[in-house]
């Protein structure tokens, strides 16, 4: 296994004239839970989309566990977008079956267990689920995979506090020293205790990449507090 689960070198992306990502250089170690933190429009989602192959970088090189972005990298990345991406007509068990079909590292038992614990019936059509339950199903699918890189885009955004705790709890219990989890979020204070490292990104550039402990020691404030200082309006 490569030392770094993700390596970005000189990654840039433009939309028309606007530079959305400028010369991003990033190395993520394995076994870490990392917060990707930044204001709206900072380039968080663009970076995540580039890593999972939904967008192509204009410049630069990206390696996921040593692989270029493509089929091999998609096999080892588990992505949770900030919106529902499931086909309405499917039943819960259909989408579980689909993940089982396409991903070798998917554990059907784990998914079924989590669904049961959250009282989500496998025979229900996705169309009939509440928004909260749809998001939980997506989270369960993503976390039932034994991937090397988890990319979670705003996983606790529109969810109630109890569900929030459940999601963070799932992230903790899913911990695997060979894999890393990237959580992109605004809700820093909620996730801070779970993070190993924090990356601050602003205007397409990485402003900071340090461990949460170091930030607290150096600046005598939480990451949330330091974020507010750095990104003061």
């Amino acid at each position, binding site marked *: 296994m490569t030392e770094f689960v993700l390596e970005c070198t000189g990654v840039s992306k433009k939309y028309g004239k606007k530079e959305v990502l400028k010369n991003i250089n990033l190395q993520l170690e394995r076994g870490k839970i990392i917060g990707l933190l930044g204001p709206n429009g900072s380039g968080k989602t663009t970076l995540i989309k580039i890593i*999972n*192959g*939904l*967008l*192509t970088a204009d410049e630069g090189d990206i390696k996921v566990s040593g692989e270029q972005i493509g*089929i*091999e990298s*998609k*096999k080892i*990345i588990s*992505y949770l*977008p900030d*919106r*529902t*991406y*499931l*086909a309405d*007509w499917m039943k819960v068990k*259909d989408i579980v079956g*689909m993940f089982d*079909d*396409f*991903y070798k590292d998917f554990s059907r038992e784990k998914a079924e267990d989590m669904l049961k614990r959250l009282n989500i019936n496998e025979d229900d059509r996705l169309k009939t689920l509440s928004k909260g339950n749809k998001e939980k199903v997506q989270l369960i699918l993503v976390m039932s995979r034994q991937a090397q890189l988890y990319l979670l885009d705003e996983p606790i955004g529109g969810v109630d506090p109890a569900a929030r705790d459940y999601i963070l709890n799932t992230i903790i219990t899913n911990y695997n020293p060979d894999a890393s989890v990237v959580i992109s979020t605004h809700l820093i204070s909620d996730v801070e205790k779970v993070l190993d490292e924090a990356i601050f990104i602003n205007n397409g550039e990485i402003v900071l990449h340090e461990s949460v402990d170091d930030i607290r020691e150096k600046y005598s404030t939480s990451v949330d507090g330091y974020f507010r200082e750095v990104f003061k309006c």
Partner: protein
Amino acid sequence: MLSKLLKYEFKATSRVFLPAYAVLLIAGAIQKIMLQFGFYNNDMGVFSKILGSIVPSLLGAAVVAIFVVTLVVMINRFRKSLLGREGYLMFTLPVNTSQLILSKAIAVLAWAILSCIIGLITVVILVYDTDFVNFVNDAIGLVGEASRQAGASNVVLFFIETVLTFIFGIVNLTFMIYLCLSIGQLSNKHRGLCAIGAFVGINFVLRNIILAIISNVLFTDKFVPPFYLCGYDTASIVGILQMMNAFMLAGLVIVIIELLIYFFITKYILSNKLNLE
């Protein structure tokens, strides 16, 4: 992976087609039974006359509807499942862009062929009587006669080319529509407009350019038959048949070259310029 994608593609689309086919066949059967037992011949006067003219045309409309449904599904499956929210799932699956495109195209082709067969069966159900049986026998006799006069191989070739023209015609239409939708998704705010614009552009401009290039390169007397489209003896049946075969073959070549162009541009756009909503 392609077979897995196909499995889910068929699962998704059969929910639309199978009920539609069932309705069509059942309606056709009912109509046939009513006709057979002289339901319309009873003296119900105006009522039976109206029924007698509405139901057949409704049925005719239903047959047409099946083809419309096929077209709509062709467009919608691509748009919804690849370019909409579901795209976030599809494009992060460990599969090729080509496999994504092909899985949808193959499924649509299968349904198109099935739709034709079902439509044909429905029509046969409706018109099946002794006159029809005689008609079929006469037709078969005609084909036999043509084989003897024009050569069996030419006749077989004719049928094969007709089927291939149908199949590749559908694939061509499919990839052309996919290309229009892919061009449409490049825009942020005017996806539909751009797709339609692409449709116009491709059909009125690109197609003509391709045709001009091909006909000036291939279909000239500098090239060998079978692309040589002149010099057939149009007085004889053999000649006519051979000429038709040659023209169909030329048409097939054009259709295939076009569909390959559409496919590769679509693949390029979706691999490199993906712009999901």
